[in-house]
């Protein structure tokens, strides 16, 4: 009961936070000088992108925890993060072109950062496909953990290797130090929006884990009835 209550509270907080974020994106944050209104998509795009990458870190941590402790919860966690992270990553790949088209004049370019996001998306697909295709049910968790760990190592290599490539993408504005010149109100908007998307991510992961648990119970009950 408390679980259901805290889950409801989580949903409520997420909705309010999301609304505040939307308000800030469209009304509070000032109009960007060169790019104009279309720049407002940046807040969503950035939040999705950072969370999608963060999601793979969580898959990695869940995988390590599973191989170490063999706890089913750790694997459920990785699986949930993969599904939600994949949706986020799709979001990045959809919002990016919408922004790129008016600003760069093209939908897509094989620039380093775009490429590495695309690879991240492929890594999500690889992880989820593997889970769907493993033949022996006892092995899914182990194999998924292994692939999740290597996938994350690759994501790291990825974000290192783009330094060796020239890039068209805006340089990181957030971590770029004091001189990177993001207006304070914009900065606040970024943070609030990112927070909202993280909160939503956490809610979805939680719901997905609860679903996995419920399915398991259901199957156990069905089997007992059949016996």
């Amino acid at each position, binding site marked *: 009961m408390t679980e259901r209550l805290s889950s409801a509270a989580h949903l409520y907080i997420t909705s309010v936070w999301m609304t505040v974020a939307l308000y800030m994106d469209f009304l509070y944050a000032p109009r960007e000088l060169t790019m104009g209104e279309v720049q407002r998509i940046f807040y969503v795009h950035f939040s999705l992108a950072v969370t999608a990458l963060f999601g793979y870190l969580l898959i990695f941590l869940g995988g390590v925890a599973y*191989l170490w402790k063999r706890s089913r919860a750790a694997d459920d966690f990785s699986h949930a993060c993969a599904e939600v992270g994949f949706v986020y990553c799709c979001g990045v790949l959809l919002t990016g072109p919408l922004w790129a088209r008016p600003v760069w004049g093209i939908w897509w370019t094989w620039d380093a950062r775009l490429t590495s996001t695309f*690879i991240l998306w*492929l*890594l999500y*697909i*690889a992880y989820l*496909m*593997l889970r769907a*295709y*493993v*033949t*022996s049910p*006892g*092995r899914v968790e*182990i*194999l998924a*953990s*292994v*692939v999740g*760990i*290597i*996938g994350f*190592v*690759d994501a790291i*290599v*990825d974000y290192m*290797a783009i330094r*060796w490539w020239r890039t068209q993408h805006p340089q990181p504005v957030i971590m770029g130090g004091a001189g990177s010149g993001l207006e304070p109100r914009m900065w606040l908007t970024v943070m609030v929006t990112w927070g909202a998307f993280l909160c939503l991510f956490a809610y979805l992961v939680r719901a997905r884990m609860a679903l996995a648990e419920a399915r398991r119970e259901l199957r156990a009950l069905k089997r007992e009835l059949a016996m």
Partner: protein
Amino acid sequence: MRIIWTILVKDLRIEWRSRETLPSMCVFGLLVVFLFNFAFETAREETLRLLPGLLWVAFAFAGVLGFNRSFAAERENGCLEGLALAPIDPSTIFLGKMLANLVFLGVAEAVVIFAASLWYNFSFFPALAWLAAILFFGSLGYAALGTIFGAVAAHTHMREVMLPVLQFPVAFWILILAIDATADALRGAPRVEIAGGVYRVAGVSLIFVVAGFLLFEYVLEE
């Protein structure tokens, strides 16, 4: 060390008897180069510019073909479990299988490069030492990934599809860096530049060799 050698020799002997993996890898690699030629019908200079990418794409596809076969043979009759029953460190199995894959990939690469140099009237000799280093390190990382993912894909339906889906996104940077380095070596770039390229390929490859080495024991488990 002795065990790694035993496993490698076993794989080579099986290949010598069946002659399945290596010929199919070579033919497949050659077909990629052949198709490319007629798909683009490029002038000679243009071809040379595109050649590094073309070669590595051919290696990548040939490799995936070989890695799949490598574990298809182990899965048959449960041989992989037979290995797991022996009192040996699972990572030695990884190293043995990886070396066997590396040998097969290396032979296929040599065949493809030789054919390409004939078909495109180009000599690889001036850059041979660099090329050998790039091929070695690039293939090492690629074979390491192929070995662990081959073992993973062996437990799935449609492993022919599953292996490339796992392999290509992760091997992406090995291939890109190897292509860059190969291009530098072929056009005779300054020593330092080529060496830098080789270090990068070697660095990324070693990361994946270590990852495979550490994780392989879990793939054997049930």
